[in-house]
């Protein structure tokens, strides 16, 4: 009985883990967020974005980056299960 349970549950769990870790990677893509922070700065320096627009975007992106870093840190073990 134990063996049957194990076989039934395991493939199902690994699919869930795969979806979960892919979602984490996409949602918490820290490189993309860092690039957006740099692009925002560049467009502000070139005069294409006002100071208030720049600051609003910068605050939002930095908050997202903090969340992303924390999420990746917390899910590191789960993501590694996938490999």
């Amino acid at each position: 009985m134990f063996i049957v349970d194990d076989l039934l549950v395991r493939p199902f769990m690994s699919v869930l883990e795969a979806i979960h870790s892919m979602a984490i990677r996409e949602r918490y893509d820290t490189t993309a967020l860092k690039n957006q922070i740099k692009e925002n700065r560049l467009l502000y320096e070139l005069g294409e974005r006002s100071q208030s627009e720049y600051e609003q975007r910068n605050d939002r992106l930095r908050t997202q980056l903090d969340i992303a870093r924390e999420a990746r840190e917390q899910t590191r073990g789960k993501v590694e299960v996938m490999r």
Partner: protein
Amino acid sequence: MSSNLYTYGVIEQDTVDIDRTGVNDSAPITTVDYRSLSAVVSEIDEMEPEQTDDNATAHDEVLRELLESDGGRTVVPMRFGMVFKNANTLKNVLRNGHVAFRRSLNDLDGMVELGVKLVTKDDTDVDRPAVVEDVATRLREVADTEAANDLYSDRLVFNRAYLVDRDDQPAFDDAVGEIRDEYGDGLHVQYNGPWAPYNFVDIEISAEGR
């Protein structure tokens, strides 16, 4: 609470007189010496200061003042966020890295870093490979070394840093002026510096050393 030492860069042994605040509004900017080297530091509370715009600017501006002080110094810059627990841990790093720091100071003697970016204006269509080749060729003629940086935005066509001898800076300025005349209608030409040569130093200090 004991203070940690935020480190900006390393220079030939000397004192510094910098009249501005550093990272986290810290002051004064002082030095920690080891043999022929001086690390330029200020005391801060945190081991991991946040890289806000103000802090990044403070880091850059301390280095820029160093670069321009005393008739033009050579600076081996640290990347943002290098904090040491106390003067002894920092001296250990200077001792262990003495050869690398000395070599960098010699290689960078009289050199500054200048940055050039080309960015598309709204909806402009440019022949990117042709522009990159032309601009790179012109700038290489007046620079010592180049380093290609990340094209982190779709709008970035060109993003490179150049190591330039101070004496050659006027020629580099002229080359950028010509590039601006030629491409300025369709592209923003952003030219900045002189900076401490961040892109031309490769000294890594592990967290354990701090």
